[in-house]
């Protein structure tokens, strides 16, 4: 419980991730950041986009740090506490590098689709060629700069690939509006249909997803 679930050891590539999210969110939006860590993203959104932001963070140390910097954050667990948030309470619900650390990514996505009009989800892509090569040639669970923990101590208990995520969105009736891949420290906007190639080269992926419930 004391460890942050999101991968906050990522430095450079995660900054890109945060800046990209910041660029995607319109000014003044109501935003819920799940797994907000020490509040870097919320702080960025607040200063650059003047959002009305809230955060949920599992680590109490993270929460205390957020509140101390003036952010509205509560201690909570994405798997357990999302049900207490109201329907359509937020314009955007963000899962930045948190999905793969939840017990039930499918339920978490469903809850978020209920709470947020749009979701922004980013995660490490387990089908990246480096990961594939690692497993293929070393025969051991991949450890890369994006996935830097050992299999026995990683917070990432539900890693998935881009294809897996697209498949889950289909199953849940969620529509992918925009897709981005991050690799070699570069952000690239791609068509959702880019498929196999993007699944091979992306170190991380970021999707803007709509829950299609607005008529």
């Amino acid at each position, binding site marked *: 419980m004391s460890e942050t679930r999101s991968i906050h050891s990522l430095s450079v590539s995660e900054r890109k991730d945060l800046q990209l999210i910041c660029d995607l969110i319109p000014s003044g939006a109501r935003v819920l950041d799940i797994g907000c860590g020490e509040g870097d993203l919320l702080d960025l959104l607040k200063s650059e986009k003047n959002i009305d932001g809230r955060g949920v963070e599992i680590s*109490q140390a993270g*929460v*205390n740090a957020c*509140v101390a910097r*003036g*952010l*509205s954050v509560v201690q909570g667990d994405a798997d357990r506490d999302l049900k*207490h948030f*109201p329907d359509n309470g937020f314009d955007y619900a963000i899962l930045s590098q948190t999905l793969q650390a939840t017990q039930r990514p499918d339920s978490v996505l469903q809850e978020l689709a209920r709470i947020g009009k749009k979701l922004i989800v980013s995660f490490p892509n387990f089908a990246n060629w480096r990961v594939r090569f690692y497993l293929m040639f070393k025969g051991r669970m991949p450890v890369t700069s994006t996935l830097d923990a050992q299999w026995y101590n990683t917070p990432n208990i539900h890693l998935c690939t881009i294809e897996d995520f697209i498949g889950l969105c289909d199953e849940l009736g969620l529509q992918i509006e925009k897709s981005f891949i991050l690799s070699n420290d570069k952000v690239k906007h791609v068509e959702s249909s880019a498929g196999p190639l993007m699944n091979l080269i992306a170190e991380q992926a970021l999707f803007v997803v709509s829950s299609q419930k607005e008529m």
Partner: protein
Amino acid sequence: MQEIQLDKSGKEPIAGESKVHVFDSPLQLVSGESLQPFTVAYCSWGKLNKDKSNTILICHALTGDQFAAGENPMTERPGWWNTMIGPGKPLDPEKYFIICSNVIGGCSGSTGPASINPATGKPYGLDFPVITITDMVRAQAKLLDALGIDSLLTVIGGSMGGMQVLEWANSFPEKVFSAIPIAGSARHSAQNIAFHEVGRQAIMADIDWHGGNYHAEKTQPRKGLAVARMAAHITYLSETALTRKFGRNLQDRDALSYGFEADFQIESYLRHQGFTFVERFDANSYLYITRAMDYFDIAAEHDGKLAAAFTNSDTRFCVVSFTSDWLFPTSESIHVVRALNAAGANVSFVEIESDKGHDAFLLDEPEMFKTLNGFLRSVAKDRGVTGESDMRGLT
């Protein structure tokens, strides 16, 4: 407005000077009865800024009083929240206008059961009407009206003070810009009602209580009130803190006495707590205020739905609890936080790691100060309260 100008700037060591405001109009109580006239005693620190946006109301706990900072002239001891109030501290009189009033039903200057009943010319005793947390808040609201203050930057308090904070947000959402309930709850639990009942029974079992008429008998139920305090005091601490502080250490002796003297340090400590308490607190006030806490249940006014109390609230909340508090445990704060989330309210929630039990909110807890500093700075900024420049503008 005369009274505000008498306030100290807060730059010198803060002195707790109690002021009183006497209201000739009745205070309508939840029970259906009313109090008329009634008095509210209060202290204040700092200055009201030009646009009256920097007021912080402190709500005190069960046995607290208006002397939150400086020195308590009645006990000659430091104010109960000196750790929190002062220059450079979270509640900084150089930046904020800080008010703390004695609750209605109390015994430090506000109207309570020891006050004179105008109908009889004698102390009310048990003729004093039963009061609630809501009534305490109504009395505070009347005081603020009288002072010409129509909104609070923050209302803050621990324990019963936390209850009042939530009641403020429930009763007067439009007046409360932000709310900080610390080690509080939105309802009194069965266990807590049970402890209060033990305390009340101890008082009422004291022969000197005289059915609440002890003033007329020129006595006081000292033993009963001391026992009530001793029992309650245990609930304010934690087993870890008791063990660390006292263990099984013996008091002024090397061996057990094989009798019922205070062999153990913890016994001696509790006896001391009990007997110093009776010097400063009225037994009937203890009955009335514990009852007010027992009756507290915000959700009950909203068909059992706590979230309904905070729907459409613009108030920013910062809920604080402590890991070792078993009287108002973190689960009570989480209950409040969930309701606030469900209501779409703006809420922060921190649980502070401390082994000091419920009383942690009164003690030196750097992590609590740090988070409260951050929260207060943020709400002050959003409200346009900048601190000293405001005060210069006033003079």
